[in-house]
């Protein structure tokens, strides 16, 4: 699978898509492959304020649990409640399946994140 050019990426295998001041956050195809069958996603509450790098939830597969880390600072304005019943969407469509939407204070937050080519190189 290719990594969308419009996204930014973290070394912890999250992707982030910034539109205006709203950032969708999900996990990458590489992450879902490593996790295996995702069975549970634990997400924060709307209104929670996250620091950059802060754990905002967990994603669990049959075999393991992984922390989710905020790629940028922001306030949680939406959580993907559909994942409660369909966590496997993370496996089938990782780059279309956002976990949370953050309201980001400044576009400068995106500085230092990896672009698609850099990320693809990281997980090669």
């Amino acid at each position, binding site marked *: 699978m290719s990594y969308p050019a419009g996204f930014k990426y973290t070394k912890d295998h999250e992707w982030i898509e910034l539109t205006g001041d709203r950032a969708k956050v999900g996990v990458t195809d590489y992450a879902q492959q490593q996790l*295996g069958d995702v069975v549970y996603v634990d997400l924060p509450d709307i209104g929670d304020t996250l620091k950059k790098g802060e754990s905002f939830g967990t994603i669990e597969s049959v075999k393991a649990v992984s922390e989710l880390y905020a790629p940028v600072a922001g306030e949680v304005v939406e959580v993907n409640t559909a994942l409660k019943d369909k966590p496997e969407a993370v496996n089938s469509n990782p780059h279309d399946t956002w976990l949370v939407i953050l309201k980001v204070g400044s576009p400068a937050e995106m500085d230092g994140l990896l672009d698609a080519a850099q990320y693809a190189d990281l997980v090669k």
Partner: protein
Amino acid sequence: MEQPTSAPLKKTPLNTRHRATGARMGAYNGWDMPLEYSGIAHEHMAVRTCAGLFDVSHMGEIEMAGRDALAALQRITSNDVSKLRVGDVQYSGVLTHAGTFVDDVLVYRLGPDHFLLVVNAGRVAADYDWIAAQITDAGDVVAVDASSRYAVLAVQGPAALEAIQPLTGVDLRGLKHHAFAHGEVASVRATVSRTGYTGEDGFEIFVPPQSADKVWQAILASGGPSGLVPAGLGARDTLRLEAALRLHGSDIDETTTPVEADLGWMVGWDKGDFTGAAVLRAQKVRGADRKLIGFQLLDAGIARSGHEVYVGDVKVGAVTTGTHTPFLKKAIGMAYVSIGHAVAGAEIEIDIRGRRTRARIVPMPFYKRPTYNV
């Protein structure tokens, strides 16, 4: 499942085949084993609805023979070996003097004075040393670590029989659960045993290592068209959890007894003395302090090994195995809890990374196959 290790990993005779056919490999008890082929959930469902093929050659084999072999095994293992006829298999415990598990094993009676113990991969050396020490004054009996002489393939699931029968002259339908027969599979000398670790009907096939790949390929070719798939240790673990089969190192070990593990049926209560008997009999009479129970989460989340169990503010135990399983699609698990709280139907709380999560104690097994195809 991954464990750090400095020694080079051991490889089963099928290692090259696993790697060549795209299995995701990982370390398990010193072995380089396939963890997944097509994914844990897919393999798990294939075994529940059709069939799966597992390489379990990492399991160990210890043979015991001699005129006094039966008497020695009566002393070394917890179950009543005298109930075994030639061709029978028995689940049993090799116990310490404290009644705790050195290992859980399957005992095969190959002949009147000849037995085979199938033991856990990580326990071969410990088992052999323990057994050897116990038979020094046991008369005419020898024990041999024969693990390198066997490759073992497990074919598990409702379609297992149909997948193997075309390859063998052994009458599989006539083979009772927990019985075995010698014969050939895919023209290879084999011992076929109606046993398994998945909660399904199925067979374990013991073959010479150099012929393992031939038999593996033949079973895939025979069963593949009807949906049999190769499967790894990941699915083996979730399948055995649904069937509430204990795993040594997780649910039972040298700190727990068969009574505590709720495995009283693997103890030959009416036979004579055996190693650990005094402790087990005392626990049976006055009750053990704790018991292994099954639970199902009532709140969202997944309890994992090591998570603590509470009733109110009191810590009453800890989880030994837990995950969200593919067939039942529920977060289930096993835990030791103090005996006063080990009551089916009772509600407990499990501390999942700081969050109290409600669970209910439920009867085990969590899953029981619809019918016995005996």
